[in-house]
């Protein structure tokens, strides 16, 4: 049943794209592991780490697009869900260090010893087990999204006001996570991870596996999103986006629709964040900064909102440009980002993927005038 549900929503284009994502997930890690470092086919570890990061960003972009592109909820706080998933993973990784920390405390992570904690705060219990941390990666962001969405959607907060609330949420979390007495590493966050599921985080095999897992997650999210937007639910969802009050007069409980995608999207963002943290090796409060959420929205806008492929392409292009520019011309990056946003809004209202559609429409028009 679930299998049928997942397959039904996928058109050929999306299936091909999912195949491509899986290919990008399988080939580079194999080349990294199997080729000798001197070979022209060898994929260096730094490359895996970089693209692995992009894959996580792409999942975040897809999550943003699901609420913004398909339901009209412009969330400016999605990086918070990503960061919360990341923190859950970070807590698990911290507990795996055990007594190998600088202070050698078998239970308390280094920063707690440093801050004179006597015992583990209550919410850290269980995070030494992966079977506990893994569901938390989904549950923590989902519960936050459920609570926020429940109040906002029921009170019919929409548009700019909703965007402001989500932005305020991530800002509040930023301030909270900066505090040392939150018990989550304060401003330094968590780092110096050693093992994940018993494998050393830095080892080539582990890196390759994490990279593959990120691609697999993205492929899975594309399938789920495709099934959701391709169903009758999806038709209702885009109708809510386009004419919300009309849907109410048709007897739809619009809140339920919004809440479902909002929570689903937060869960996706959380998983993406959890895969991101072991690859970059650190999680700190800066992940909550409002700018991160806004950047994620930009990826979607550049790639093409309201399409499933667009956000993935947007995340890759913008982040690749960012990596290049911050290295080559660091002072230019912020201007480039701003300029990009203006350019996309003015010239590419439907993003890069929309360009393709525009091109086809023009071709069809010329064909029709030619035959007429």
């Amino acid at each position: 049943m679930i299998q049928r549900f997942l397959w039904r929503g996928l058109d050929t284009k999306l299936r091909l794209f999912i195949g491509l994502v899986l290919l990008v997930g399988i080939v580079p890690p194999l080349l990294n592991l199997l080729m000798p470092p001197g070979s022209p086919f060898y994929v260096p570890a730094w490359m895996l780490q970089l693209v692995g990061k992009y894959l996580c960003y792409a999942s975040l972009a897809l999550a943003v697009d699901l609420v913004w592109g398909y339901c009209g909820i412009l969330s400016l706080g999605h990086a918070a869900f990503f960061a919360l998933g990341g923190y859950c993973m970070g807590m698990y990784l911290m507990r795996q260090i055990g007594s190998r920390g600088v202070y050698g405390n078998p239970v308390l992570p280094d920063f707690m010893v440093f801050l004179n904690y006597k015992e583990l705060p209550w919410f850290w219990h269980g995070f030494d087990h992966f079977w506990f941390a893994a569901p938390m990666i989904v549950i923590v962001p989902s519960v936050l999204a459920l609570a926020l969405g429940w109040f906002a959607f029921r009170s019919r907060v929409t548009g700019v006001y909703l965007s402001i609330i989500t932005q305020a949420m991530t800002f509040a979390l930023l301030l909270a996570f900066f505090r040392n007495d939150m018990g989550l590493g304060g401003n330094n966050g968590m780092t110096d991870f050693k093992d994940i599921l018993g494998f050393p985080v830095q080892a080539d095999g582990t890196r390759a596996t994490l990279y593959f897992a990120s691609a697999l997650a993205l492929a899975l999210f594309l399938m789920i999103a495709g099934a959701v937007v391709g169903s009758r639910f999806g038709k209702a969802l885009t109708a809510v986006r386009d004419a919300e009050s009309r849907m109410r007069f048709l007897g739809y409980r619009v809140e339920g629709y919004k809440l479902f995608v909002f929570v689903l999207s937060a869960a996706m963002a959380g998983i993406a964040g959890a895969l991101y943290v072991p690859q970059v090796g650190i999680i700190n409060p800066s992940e909550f900064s409002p700018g991160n959420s806004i950047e994620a929205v930009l990826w979607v806008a550049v790639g093409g909102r309201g399409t499933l492929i667009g956000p993935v392409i947007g995340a890759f292009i913008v982040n690749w440009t960012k990596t290049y520019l911050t290295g080559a011309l660091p002072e230019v990056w912020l201007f480039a980002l701003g300029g990009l946003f203006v350019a996309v809004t003015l010239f590419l209202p439907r993003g890069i993927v929309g360009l393709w559609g525009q091109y086809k429409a023009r071709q069809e028009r010329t064909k029709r005038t030619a035959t007429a």
Partner: protein
Amino acid sequence: MTSPVKSTSALLYLSGVTVSFDGFKALNNLSLLVEPGEMRAIIGPNGAGKTTMMDVITGKTRPDEGEVVFDGQADLTKLDEADIATLGIGRKFQKPTVFENHTVRDNLLLALAGQRSWYRLLLAAPTKAENDRLDEILTVIRMGPQQHMLAARLSHGQKQWLEIGMLLAQDPKLLLVDEPVAGMTDVETETTAAVLREINKSHSVVVVEHDMSFVRALGVKVTVLHEGSMLAEGSLDQVSADPRVVEVYLGR
């Protein structure tokens, strides 16, 4: 609003309804009765409160005073839009609002009576019965050939047709239709009247319209609204002979 709901045989019962916007009374002590199976035309000059009346009935606007009862039991002043729609009141807006990014058929599917809950729609595909019903409605509104066209590409008149089809798809007990023939040609107007009379065979209808030839073609009881209150009621000939009605329409 605190008085207990009256038991009445009328399908729609409005009594003493007042709505103020910043002190301006868009509806002023309005009372109206619509019997089951009836079709009623509402006319009145611009700003008379016709659309506001529909807003009150559908739960979009809460009245400051007065009673609004549906089917002899449901107090509409206490329910929201979705509840009221579920009770069986469907509405066509003055400005056509179809779902532009959906096909004609999908617009009708969204409106189709039945499944509304999000978790059911995640898994349910349209059933055979539902598809048959869609085909039927497409025939009634004469839009079979356009069924896979995006609604955004329809002409103004076609959008009005689609809206009427969506209303039919909801299969409500009472249809509220706001200015269905605005911007239509004479031929289209006549067909619309025929379609509404057809619909009236199995549904109660309240139509708001300015177009007198259309109201005449409907041939039903007319209520004249003016400045938020009822000015006259009766057949079209009766009310157009009423000097107060003449003054309201000509004296502006």
